[in-house]
């Protein structure tokens, strides 16, 4: 029997999408910068890493060490990438999104949207 996958929270969705988008370059700095730029909200590393740890526990992402660099004071990066179940969850979220919103776009809202 397959356990029905739980729906992703908005934040989890945001993180998974960002990691997927960044491909091989998804680590702390890029993930945080990307999310801050897109949402306009401030996320601290404390929050970022606790969410990433959660995703790790749920099995949506996996991590591996990258190359050390001088900007990082000689420390290595911790790179993240989606697991197949992470990708599946992201896909489900997208389909859900599409099903709920249908063909509603900015234009559909008309004058009220522009306000």
């Amino acid at each position, binding site marked *: 029997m397959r356990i029905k996958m739980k729906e992703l929270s908005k934040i989890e969705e945001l993180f998974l999408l960002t990691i997927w988008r960044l491909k091989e370059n998804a*680590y702390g700095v890029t993930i945080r910068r990307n999310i801050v730029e897109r949402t306009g909200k401030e996320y601290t*590393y404390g929050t970022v890493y606790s969410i990433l740890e959660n995703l790790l526990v749920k099995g949506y992402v996996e991590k591996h060490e990258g190359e050390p*660099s001088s900007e990082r*004071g000689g420390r290595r990066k911790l790179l993240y990438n989606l697991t197949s179940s992470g990708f599946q969850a992201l896909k489900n979220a997208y389909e859900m999104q599409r099903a709920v919103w249908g063909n509603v776009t900015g234009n559909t809202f008309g004058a009220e949207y522009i306000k």
Partner: protein
Amino acid sequence: MTRKKSNIPKTAERITGIIFKPGINKYASGDLEEEFHLILKESGKRKALFWYWKQVLLSAFPYIGKNIIWNIIMYKNYIKIAWRNLLNHKSYSFINITGLTIGMSLSLLIAVLVMWEISYDKFHENTDSLYRITELLYHENHTQRIHQTAVPVGPLLKNTYPEIVNSSRFINLNEMLFCYEDKRFYEYSIAADRSLFTMLTFPIIEGTATSEPNSILIDETTAEKFFGASDPVGKHVTVDNQYTFVVAGIFEDIPKNSTYQFHIVLPFEFMQNFEWFHENNWSNHNYTTFIMLDEKTDAEEINSKIINTVNDHYDEMRIDIALQSFNDIHLNTEVNGPSAFFAFFFFSLIGVFILLISCINFMNLSTARSSYRFKEIGMRKVIGGTRKNIICQFFSESLLLSFISFVFSVILVQLALNAFCNYTGAQVTLNVTENRMLLVIMIGITFFSGIVAGSYPALYLSSFMPVNVLKGTHRFGKKSRTFRRILVTTQFAASIMFIISALVITKQADFLLNYDTGWDNENLMHIRMRGDINNSYDILKNELNKNPGIQRVTAGYYLPTYFSSETDGVDWQGKDPQETIHVGWNFVDYDFIETLKINMVEGRSFSEEFADDEHSYIINESLAEKIGREPVIGAGLTFWDKPGKIIGVAKDFNYRTLKVGIQPMALLLRDKNSMQYIIIKLNPENTASTLKFITNTWERIIPGIPLEYSFIDDDIYSMYNDEDILGKVMKIITFLALFMTCSGLIGLVSFITDKKQKEIGIRKVLGASVSGIARLISKEFLNLIIISNVIAWPAAYFMMTVMLKSYAFRTKQDFGTYVISGLFILVIALLTIGYQTVKAAHKNPVEALRFE
């Protein structure tokens, strides 16, 4: 791989290492460093540093939160144990809670008072862009900052600098007689530009602040007083029986934490009724000027621009002007003198000290009881409790106690608040929904005392080795003894400082009240004279003089307690034209010198036998010295361009509060129309019937106007009320501080006698006397008290010297005060420890030694 030189503060980096999980932290700090360098390149070092700290501190919150959740079960256990401990040792808990409650209540009260002081003038919506203009006067050899200006300064500034968006002037008119129908009251009034109401926040609740030249604005209380329930707007009132005004609007009563207080606002144009008023008068510095800056303008920049604006208008003297922010009108030392700020600072310091004393008290008591907890600590360690667990246990106990004390102290403060408000004149509540800062302070005080008080037992007792503790072979190290000694010394030092301060402040208050001012203030009564009353003065004086109960009657523009103004319009032959001398002055009637029994050094006083006394002056010794001529009697003196001659020199007497010194002064004879006060010297006998006579005479001669009189010694008392109250408050605080110190001491002594049981036993067996043993134990404390005196005396001396410096006339600090305070503490301490030591010395040595 070389490491780039990093600009990241080490502490921040270390915190990063702690708050992130061990597996993550090196990557996270790498990330932080990388982005730090990015931001460094993009927007500079300051921004980058700010960003880094923000990241670190905000990241810490989820970490702390998580920890709390994980440990909640453990915490429940800590609190349960703490609660049981509290109930098991009721008397001990009682002493602890009492001490903490007293400490917290006092510091809470002080915090509330300090916040009240800070809140002054902050209720204006535009506080941040509002400024008062101050003038810096350059005298011959000193400078003086005054917070008033000449009339034209405000409009001139507004017209010259576009950054100044608005300006307003006002002048105090003091009390004026207002009449509406049959109601006549004296009300404190000002004349002000109407822009006052747009700049400052004095909300209009009815009508408008129109600029009609004959309209006035009144506050709610006054409106109620004159018009009761009917609508005041549009009603006509008479002012000083001469001018008629229309009530244009009502403003809300001015909050007590406003520096400026008034009930009625007349239009500034009203001043044109006075012949001495000119819009271009640069020499009369009686006007308070406010300006409002454009929001974007930097005050410093404007300050440097305007500094010389008014200097062109003065030939003889240099006057600089400056902005003073509304935020620091109340506590500014340069204008208000050091005393306001000193009291503020002094009280904050006392608040912290009191809290510290009660915390030390707690520490002493927990140390005293530590041996009861040995087994518990040992057991906890043996069954796997870490040191962290035990630290948490002790902290939760102290925090629990401080929370309980907090609840009690809030109740206590609430009960005392009313009396406290009456006492200090502050208007404060414990309403935390209105005052967020208060909530923060309350929580701060609770946690501070909980953590400081619990720190010693938590950190020290948790370090014991379980084996030693359980076997009973634990030895208290030298370090812990030194630490306990430091605590006791601190406590005593603070108590001694309190006692000294209380004594010195009380002494200064007594000194001020009983100071020989150079005139006789016994049985002096004064009656306020305004409006038409002056016309009846001569008749009144005649009638009053007939009564044998009245010694003399005179009048003056100012009361002898306070000649509030001084002038530089005095000239004499041979005066250095470069030099500006400020001369205090008073208009007086005949008999002024005689009524007040002022001693004359030379010459005569004003007398009706000499026809031209209208052009004569009596000066004081200080002015005579300035003039420096021999003989000074008969010398010419020009006062406000009116030439005259000096007929007498009075011995220097105090004509202002003792907070300021005696300066040059002159008395001018004027007729009844220049007088504000009738001054009457009564015979000490039958004052009641004399008073009745005065009232009857008054009603007969001036019917319909209320007689307003008071006695000068009452005035003097109220002048020094602050000092008196401060002295009393200090005594109460001192008493409470002593109480706490002593209760801590009891705990400590019982701890020491407990430890020394065997020593005492052996000594007794070998033949020591009870007194010898008592001396042995007390000796340690005697040394500590001597050390605390050595610490407290210089500190108290420094503080009291600063305080006394704010008075021109001050009592001397004598060594006796210090010695008495020290001895007092010594006696109190000996009495406190006496009982415990004697009890220990009386014990049967067998009890202590039988197990050996």
